């Protein structure tokens, strides 16, 4: 019988996450006062919806790389399952982040995509993890697949962080808040109530993205039990 991991099999944080996101969905429309925040007008509410996608993605990738390291230490396949499923869901949230960001850009900067360090960095980061998933699918043998992808993941994660956070911050100019010469929203006078819904949204989406990941992990765990039965 597999050991029960409480952060996968317990329930309270799922409901907490759902409540926080529901609060931020409502609060983002009712509590935020968008007056006087640059040219963003009402679209500043997107802070509650677009940015948490990236927080969810990055937190899942932290989980993924930690489990890749654990896999290489122990060669226990359960770590490989957690690492790969986290990366899979992280890629999904990254796509949501790119799509929502692109839509927001169309109405704030007038274009779907622009050669900005933050945008291209995020796109490259996404591609790095596409490659991770393709690499996994291209290796048939289970142990080899797990080992190769764990090593790849350890190299990929620092690169991802550099492309998505470090390089945009170092860039001389960028339109995206929090990168290059553009400051983050936290530098503006905060009469907008943004924080009241932004922080709960981040926590809530991290919880929900991890919830979805645990469902996938549990399915894989069941499959691996079935497979060992057959042998």
């Amino acid at each position, binding site marked *: 019988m597999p050991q029960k991991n409480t952060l996968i099999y317990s329930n309270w944080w799922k409901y907490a996450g759902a409540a926080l996101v*529901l609060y931020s969905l409502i609060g983002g*429309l009712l509590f935020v006062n*968008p007056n006087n925040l640059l040219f963003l007008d009402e679209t500043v509410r997107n802070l509650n919806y677009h940015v948490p996608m990236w927080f969810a993605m990055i937190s899942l990738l932290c989980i993924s790389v930690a489990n890749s390291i654990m896999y290489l230490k122990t060669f226990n396949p359960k770590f490989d399952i957690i690492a790969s499923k986290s990366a899979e869901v992280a890629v999904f949230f990254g796509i949501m982040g790119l799509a929502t960001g692109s839509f927001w850009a169309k109405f704030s900067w007038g274009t779907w995509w622009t050669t900005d360090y933050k945008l291209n960095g995020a796109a490259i980061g996404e591609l790095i993890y596409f490659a991770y998933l393709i690499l996994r699918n291209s290796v048939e043998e289970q142990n080899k697949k797990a080992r190769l992808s764990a090593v790849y993941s350890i190299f990929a994660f620092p690169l991802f962080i550099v492309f998505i956070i470090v390089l945009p911050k170092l860039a001389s100019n960028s339109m995206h808040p929090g990168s290059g010469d553009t400051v983050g929203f936290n530098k503006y006078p905060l009469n907008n109530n943004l924080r009241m819904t932004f922080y709960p949204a981040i926590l809530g989406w991290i919880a929900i993205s991890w919830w979805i990941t645990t469902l996938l992990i549990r399915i894989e765990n069941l499959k691996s039990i079935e497979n060992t039965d057959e042998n």
Partner: protein
Amino acid sequence: MLLGLVSHNMFAQTTENPFYSNGKIYVVVAVISIIFTGIIIFLIRIDRKLKKTEKEINKKNQHKD
């Protein structure tokens, strides 16, 4: 106190901001809430179904030992 703060802000918004002045934004909020709550209930049901399957498989395995 926090609630007082919130209602004060909402009151300020209803008078200043056209986004709230006709009151219809609450319809949108309700629709979004319904959809999100539905998705969460769906997730919970998947979760429960999975738990049931896990129990069955674990029981089967214990019988083998």
